[in-house]
Structure formats: C-alpha cells, structure tokens
C-alpha cells in the first residue's frame, strides 16, 4: 500500500540553524499538510498546500517557516532560524481530495539544542 515517507527520522540541530524536513507524499495525492506534535501535547496543524501554493497556515507558521514542492514528488518544510520551542515531532500528511482520509508519515523528530 502506498505510504507517505519522511526523512530524516531524527534531526538534531543547534538553535539558530536552518533545518529542512523532507516528505514524499503519496503519488496521486493533491493536498499536502504539515502538522507538529510537541511532546505530550496535541497534534497541531501548521500549513496546507494545494495547487502549488499555501491554502491555509496557522499562527505557529510564522515568517521563519516555509514550504516548497520543488518537483513532482517532494514536499519540504524549512525552518530558517530554529528556536528551542521548535523541538517537536513534525508530520507530513497528504490526501487525494477533500473529504478523504489524510495519510500521515512516521514523522521527523526535531531536537533543538
């Protein structure tokens, strides 16, 4: 069964450094999302992406964050200057249409030192 893949599984970075989290959504999917889960807390929506542009972003998704779909397969989340509070599990998700299941990757655990 097709699945969403995320790399790396764990990223350790110094505060202030840039990180890029990578995702390969399911190939025929059209809607792409990033969520994050701080340890012990709820899963939170960050951003949605459709038709090569951001369709919605949360308050968390400030100017330090950006997303790209550089080619037909990858979907990336960049954090320009990481902060300690960015430490979390970041999940990529995709769906082929609205009102359809969103399929999640296994996540990238981001640790900011």
């Amino acid at each position, binding site marked *: 069964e097709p699945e969403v893949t995320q790399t790396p599984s764990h990223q350790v970075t110094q505060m202030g450094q840039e990180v890029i989290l990578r995702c390969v959504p399911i190939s025929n999917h059209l*809607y792409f999302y990033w*969520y994050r889960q701080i340890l012990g807390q709820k*899963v939170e*929506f960050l951003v949605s992406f459709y038709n090569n542009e951001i369709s919605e972003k949360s308050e968390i998704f400030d100017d330090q964050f950006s997303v790209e779909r550089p080619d037909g397969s990858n979907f990336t989340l960049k954090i320009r200057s990481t902060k300690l509070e960015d430490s979390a599990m970041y999940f990529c998700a995709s769906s082929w249409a609205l009102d359809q299941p*969103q399929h*999640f990757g*296994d*996540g990238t655990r981001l640790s900011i030192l």
Partner: protein
Amino acid sequence: SQQGEEDPQALSIQEGENATMNCSYKTSINNLQWYRQNSGRGLVHLILIRSNEREKHSGRLRVTLDTSKKSSSLLITASRAADTASYFCATALSNFGNEKLTFGTGTRLTIIP
C-alpha cells in the same frame, strides 16, 4: 475552534473485551477521522465518518457520529494486545484547497494480556 476532546484520557481493559472511546467537538464539521498512534510513531488512519453519516464499520472498529450532540465514539471489539496505543479523533472542515484537521487530546488504551 473545532476542539476535539477525548474521553477517557486513559483506558485499561483485558484482552478480548471491548473498548469504547468518545470524542466531543465544538463547531460544524465535514468529517471526523480517527487515528491510532503507537508510542513515538506516526499516525495511522483508522476510519473517516462524514457529517451525513451516523455509523461506520471497518473490521473490529465501529464509529458513530451524532452531529446534534457534536460527539463521536470509537468502539474496538474483541481487543488484542496489539491494539495498545493512543487513539485520536480529528475534525475536518473543508475550505477551498484545504481541509485542516483539528486533533483531540487522545485516549491512551492499554490492553492487558
């Protein structure tokens, strides 16, 4: 916000028994999705129920939705040790190009062999 709250927060039952988890939310939805998360792992999609549906089944899973009470329940029948995980409900409201999920706090289910 479309906040989902699960009840109970934690549930321990003997293997073979049925497990019921409840979810309440506050605003209109297009659909409600249930996910499972094993410790430190990704979110696995279990079932999606649309706002015009009242009940859905998938294998040992039964989901109900009461939009008048803004609540849903997930029943796992004949539980197995492998069902031990956290279970989350997530509500979805579609806008053009976007269907962000708002997750609940989760129910930690432990199946005792």
